[in-house]
């Protein structure tokens, strides 16, 4: 069932009611600047509710946050730590509930974005601009017709593409600090699709400062330029959805800031990326039966070069080429309060590179899942099993991997309250780099396991959505790179066991023109590897105990304004906490204002308004205060 309503006010209230009732979602946003049709896709009868803890950043909040990448939006959610090496070109990954970035599955319209080579997705590559919402689910979504891959990660990030509600052309230009220019254009055709293109160019060099007891350094972070181009198109027709994406970038890779007497010598590296994918999905749902199918092809190219005369270290010049073909099929059957869903998917990925002694490798990854749902009188239960079989083909012998994992969740809804809990165990397979990379890879690696238990409470009413969760998780057999005993050679090994206990709280409130997102995270993330080690029971590096975020958005007539704030507690950066001073806690405030006059819109923003100097990774300083101004033209 799909609702199409013409009145804006009605849209708002229906959105709220529907999403609260069906999805237990944070208050959904309505489009602010159009009075045209709004299509609510979420209102699909699935025979179940989203009972796993999840948080959503809506389109309205996305518009309010002064940022352009998905990573910048996700950092405001509870339980999320962002890893950012600073600058526009620095890699941005997220870590959820301290399970590690490789345990976060990133899904675009339900299709997983993968990187068989290193297992991480650089969220800096995905634009917020075309998205309807970004959601984070701990464990996974619990609905019918999920693909087996959707069950296969410890946390899942869903990026949902926005279906255009009008036919329009929008062009924008942004000028920002550090010599940054962005130009973008979007053509949308009502209900049917859009084409979105953007180009960014930034000199990127930014000043940094360190003032501590042992140093007084000011300098400029060099070689942080980036040029990137992205074009993507989407088409929608009934249950069919087609999405094609192309991204191209070239960038400098600045290193960590270390003691140097001058800038005479550098260790320059540069990177070229090219990512392409095209995916087609189909979904059909009747009262009792459901069917969903996906096909996807992706092609990724990476070129890393440090072969420059001024470089004083390794002069490498390597190219990596990955392809990925993915198909998935899932079917579901619902009868009264019962539902069952089965899904199977198959992924073929390969990696070609000119790295010495690295031989061509391809991987076949098949997954099958079976889920059972029960939903009656406020009680909601779901049990899913996942069978994974992975086999690699390359020179020499390889070990196929097959494992069975499961998760179980249950909830009870009473009026505006929902009590829920889940248990999930899942692993990440060693990546192709982990296993086969020249001089580092180790074919004997075991998968890295996560186990999670969560219990939480949700309160929802017309204006408010409050969630609180307590969780406990383990990561076992961490895959890390360590030198071999008595040699200089580093290799990938299974070493380490961590456990994290935490509480996530998020409050999403909306009243008239005001919206407020507040989150708080407490976590106690400890090393439980070796009781004889001094680092045993120490906090895991870069896991703060406390963090808080707040995003306030205000819209009034043609004006909009938002204020976002983030507090992150001190973080140890050494595995053994006592031997070094932790990175200090920091506060970062962003502000953005916008005004629309006829076809013209103007937005101005400050990130890190108070110019707080902080680091997310030790010796990789963040850029401090930066300004951007954007002009938009709507037709």
């Amino acid at each position: 069932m799909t609702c199409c309503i013409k009145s804006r006010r009605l849209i708002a209230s229906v959105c709220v009611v529907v999403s609260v009732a069906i999805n237990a979602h944070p208050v959904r946003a309505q489009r602010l600047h159009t009075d045209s049709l709004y299509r609510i896709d979420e209102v699909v009868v699935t025979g179940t509710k989203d009972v796993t803890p999840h948080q959503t950043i809506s389109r309205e909040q996305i518009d309010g946050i002064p940022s352009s990448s998905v990573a910048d939006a996700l950092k405001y959610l509870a339980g999320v730590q962002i890893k950012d090496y600073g600058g526009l070109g620095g890699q941005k990954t997220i870590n959820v509930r301290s399970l590690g970035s490789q345990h976060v599955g990133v899904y675009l319209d339900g299709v997983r974005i993968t990187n068989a080579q290193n297992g991480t997705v650089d969220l800096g590559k995905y634009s917020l601009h075309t998205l309807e919402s970004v959601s984070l689910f701990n464990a996974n979504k619990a609905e019918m017709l999920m693909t087996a891959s959707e069950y296969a990660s410890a946390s899942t990030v869903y990026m949902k593409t926005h279906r255009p509600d009008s036919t329009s052309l929008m062009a924008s230009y942004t000028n920002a600090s550090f010599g940054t220019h962005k130009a973008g254009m979007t053509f949308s055709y009502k209900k049917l699709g859009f084409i979105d293109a953007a180009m960014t160019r930034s000199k990127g060099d930014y000043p940094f400062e360190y003032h501590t007891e042992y140093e007084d350094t000011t300098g400029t972070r060099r070689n942080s330029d980036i040029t990137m181009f992205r074009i993507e198109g989407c088409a929608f027709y009934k249950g069919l959805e087609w999405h094609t994406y192309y991204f191209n970038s070239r960038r400098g890779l600045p290193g960590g800031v270390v003691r140097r007497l001058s800038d005479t010598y550098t260790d320059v590296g540069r990177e070229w990326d090219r990512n392409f994918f095209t995916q087609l999905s189909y979904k059909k749902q009747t009262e009792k039966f459901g069917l969903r199918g996906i096909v996807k092809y992706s092609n990724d190219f990476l070129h890393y070069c440090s072969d420059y005369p001024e470089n004083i270290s390794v002069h490498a010049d390597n190219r990596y080429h990955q392809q990925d073909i993915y198909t998935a099929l899932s079917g579901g059957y619902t009868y009264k309060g019962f539902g069952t869903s089965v899904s199977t998917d198959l992924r073929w990925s390969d990696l070609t590179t000119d790295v010495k002694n690295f031989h061509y490798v391809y991987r076949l990854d098949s997954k099958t899942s079976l889920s059972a749902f029960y939903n009656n009188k406020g009680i909601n239960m779901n049990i899913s099993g996942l069978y994974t079989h992975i086999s690699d083909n390359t020179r020499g012998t390889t070990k196929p991997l097959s494992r069975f994992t499961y998760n179980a969740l249950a909830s009870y809804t009473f009026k505006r309250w929902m009590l829920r809990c889940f248990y999930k165990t899942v692993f990440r397979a060693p990546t192709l780099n982990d296993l086969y990379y020249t001089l580092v890879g180790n074919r004997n690696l075991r998968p890295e396991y996560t186990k999670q238990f969560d219990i939480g409470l949700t309160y929802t009413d017309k204006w408010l959505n409050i969630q609180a969760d307590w969780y406990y998780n383990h990561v076992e057999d961490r895959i890390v790179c360590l030198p071999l005993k008595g040699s200089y050679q580093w290799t990938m090994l299974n070493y380490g066991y961590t456990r994290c206990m935490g509480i996530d709280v998020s409050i999403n409130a909306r009243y008239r023109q005001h919206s407020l997102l507040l989150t708080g995270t407490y976590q106690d993330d400890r090393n439980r590897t070796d009781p004889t080690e001094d680092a045993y029971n120490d906090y895991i590096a870069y896991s703060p105990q406390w963090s808080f975020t707040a995003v306030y958005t205000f819209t009034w007539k043609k004006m909009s304004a938002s204020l976002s704030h983030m507090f992150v507690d001190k973080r140890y950066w050494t595995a053994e906490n006592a031997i070094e001073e932790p990175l200090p806690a920091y506060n970062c405030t962003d502000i953005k204002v916008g005004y629309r006059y006829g076809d013209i819109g103007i937005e101005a923003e400050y990130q890190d308004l108070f110019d707080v100097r902080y680091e997310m990774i030790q010796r990789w300083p963040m850029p401090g205060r930066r300004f951007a101004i954007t002009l938009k033209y709507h037709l």
Partner: protein
Amino acid sequence: MAACSTDNDGEKTIVPEPPVQVIAGENLIICNEGNWQSDNGQLSYYDGSTGKMTNQWFRSINGIKLGDTPNDILHVNDTLIAIAVNWSNIIQYIHPDGKACGATENVPNNRRMCTDGKYLYITSYAHICGDRIFTKGYVAKIDLRTKDVVATCETGWEPEGIRLYDGRLYVANTGGYSFSEAHEYETTVQVIDAATMKTLRTIDTGCINLYGEMSQAGRFLCINSCGDYYDVKPKTVILDCETERYHVFDFPCTYNTTDGKMFYTVGSEFSYNTYEYVYHLYTIDPETMSATYGIYNSTVTEKLKELQSPYELYVSPYTGNIYFTDAKSYATAGFIYGYRSDGTEVFNPQKIYINPAHILAIPNYKDK
């Protein structure tokens, strides 16, 4: 004490004579590499007379950080110690009391050092030294009065260990970047005239990747060959600088040291083909070119076998004590162990800092 001498006129004068000093003990400076790109290289200082270990020693004395990845430390003379701080592209000089006294910047990506007391010789993987450009690696000669580079000599790819014998520099070439650069592993020891900084000849050892520490016992050098971790096995090369002939042992000496007569070695043999792993502990007598299992005595040998991640082995030239470090998980503070030749402990294991890679003994003298 005074010596008596008789002047020409027969009158006796008393001439004071410097007191005869004997070694009463030693202090240790430990060079901790820290983690690459973390700017956390550190020195630890062990005071032999009080038994106190001071970590963050350089920092606490000088109020500045040492830099990123210090990978060699050398006792130049009574007043000067040099530290090659690899990723900071500097050679940092300190007095034995830890006070910084200058730095040389023009040898980026520096590796290992040796000295004749007046000049410092240092290897570098880089292709640049001030305005000098090299295709492969080089050795720089630094005048210790001015701390400036006065001469250079091009070497093979990625030159590592360097030692001085009879006015000649012996440089082990590794070719260690060959996994990503378009060249092969090196097999040569390059002989350079220290006075003119001209290459005299190269000695082809037939063993690839001459990486790591290089100990010197008189005319003999102990050189580690890592192999390629696939089909070419690691080796130990003992080179006689007098005859320039060499002997090859079928085990690696990743960490090696000497008491001036014997070489003591710790090595691991690992193959990516089989993932098999063999750990070696040998004492080599270069005079007879023979190797025997174990180091010093069973206490030291057993302790070395117990270590999680051996990271340095050092015999003090002053006391004959043997010191070695355990880097543990490479991310936590390492430990140092010290034993006398009779197997008794010099001190209880001491906690130092991340990746303790080098040890230097500074003698304590007392009047006889």
